[in-house]
């Protein structure tokens, strides 16, 4: 039992790290960014590039298999990936926004970018799975009968501290408050002197940073594949909707539930149907609470 809770929470950590960006673009730019899976993958591959440059397998931190090279790679890949995303926004999404494009147009553009992103990764990095390092990982018993690797534990800890950091950012800093203001009422935000373009830039950067961290650790725990982010997209959207679209904390809660349900379905012997189980449970919850767990009634 405990084993599946642990497995579920590890999955939830990567879903939640990815879903933050999805939730933020949904709240502030008001469209579902179907290219967000590729942001995750691109971030992970840039981390791989940096780790390869440093030299794979160099250094490890105590019992944790990933060492300082992976941690060093994170700020670099976050920076590079953010710059790419900001360029894509300037070339594609901003043009569409300025022309008052509908949501559907934005979503279709995102779909196109998603395909492009995956193809470009395959072109440059190849389609076969990649790994940051090849060590054999040990697991230990955290609770009686529940084993976990130090790496998984570290990922959960890093994800949790990232969310606590995000909470303080949104509730304490003026940019965080401005983001919440723009998410609620962009016109009133502009009246108050908020430059919405600035807010949009930081929305992309923060979402990309979380996606890069999520993608890198997903790549570390499992493997890097061009489709790694796209395959996670459905679960991230599930978390977003389950938590109540428009509520970032709801998204994190939704991610935890999606992760837990996914691993529980394995526990009860339905591993082949795990996606079906996840969405069945989500359907049932939404039938009772159509606005999602923390969402407000429309």
């Amino acid at each position, binding site marked *: 039992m405990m084993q599946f809770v642990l497995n579920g929470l590890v999955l939830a950590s990567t879903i939640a790290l990815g879903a933050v960006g999805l939730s933020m673009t949904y709240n502030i730019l008001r469209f579902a960014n179907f290219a967000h899976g590729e942001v995750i993958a691109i971030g992970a591959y840039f981390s791989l590039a940096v780790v390869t440059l440093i030299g794979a397998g160099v250094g490890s931190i105590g019992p944790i298999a990933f060492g300082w090279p992976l941690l060093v790679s994170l700020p670099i890949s976050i920076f590079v990936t953010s710059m790419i995303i900001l360029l894509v926004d300037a070339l594609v999404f901003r043009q569409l926004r300025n022309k008052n494009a509908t949501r559907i147009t934005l979503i279709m553009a995102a779909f196109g970018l998603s395909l492009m992103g995956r193809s470009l990764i395959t072109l440059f990095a190849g389609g076969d799975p990649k790994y940051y390092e090849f060590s054999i990982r040990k697991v230990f018993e955290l609770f009686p009968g529940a084993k976990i690797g130090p790496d998984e534990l570290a990922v959960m800890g890093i994800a949790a501290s990232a969310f606590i950091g995000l909470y303080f950012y949104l509730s304490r800093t*003026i940019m965080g*408050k*401005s983001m*919440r*203001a723009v998410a*609620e*009422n962009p*016109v*009133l*935000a*502009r*009246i*108050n*002197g*908020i*430059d*919405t373009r600035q807010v949009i830039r930081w929305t992309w950067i923060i979402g990309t940073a979380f996606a890069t961290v999520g993608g890198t650790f997903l790549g570390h725990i499992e493997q890097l594949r061009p489709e790694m982010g796209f395959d996670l997209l459905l679960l991230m959207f599930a978390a977003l909707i389950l938590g109540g679209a428009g509520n970032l904390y709801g998204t994190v809660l939704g991610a935890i539930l999606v992760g837990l349900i996914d691993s529980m379905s394995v526990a009860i012997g339905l591993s082949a149907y795990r996606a079906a189980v996840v969405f069945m449970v989500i359907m049932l919850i939404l039938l009772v609470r159509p606005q999602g767990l923390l969402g407000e009634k429309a």
Partner: protein
Amino acid sequence: MPGGNILEVRNVVSGYVPTLPILNGVSLDVKVGEIVTLLGPNGAGKSTLIKAIAGILKVWSGTAHFLGRDLTKFETHDLVREGLGYVPQTENVFAKLSVEENLEIGCLVNRKEYPRQRERIFELFPDLARQRSLAAGKLSGGQRQMLAVGRALMANPKLLMLDEPSAGLSPKLAQVVFSQLLKVRDAGVTILMVEQNARAALQISDRGYILAEGREHLQGDAASLLDNPEVGELFLGAKSRLAKTGLGAKSHLAKTGPGKS
């Protein structure tokens, strides 16, 4: 520049949908230190004019100058720094943000002054001080309106534009808001407001404009507008005019009172 114009609007044409102008060449002046009220029937373009001045709607033709500077050259988010405050009619507070966070957002262009400005607003609206940590969406209608005005005052505007500050308030609460606006003016803020509550608004105003079909139809000082029979018929309810002129008969004109715009 005491007595000079703080706002000069000339022949402004604007609207929401291209080829369908709401404003058809409206002109208006606001002098430093005045309270000016915009009146007019539904669809006359009162709110549209304020939105065009605030840069939320594009000015298609004509000019708008604020303290001698061309408003159409500014982006909406730059105006507050120039000293132009605006309180929209609806959705004029951030419902999910706390009272204090709303005020902080209002003070964005002047962040060093935030603690001092906040205390000033709390003195002006003591209700807000008691609810400072509450989400603005949970405030009562009157408190919400005070927060909206307070939020706009945080940036120390020279001109405050309000779109129906008394909308949805009981007559008693409306009076409270109006008396606060007088205090705001006395503190040195020029006020331009749209109102349906014509009598109460004109009573605290220096001058008024009556818009019709996107143009200024009538203008004058508040007292003369209050006495103007046409204004009486249109906005004050015929009773007042009849009472003034000594005719006590009921009139169908009372039905042509203000609606929502």
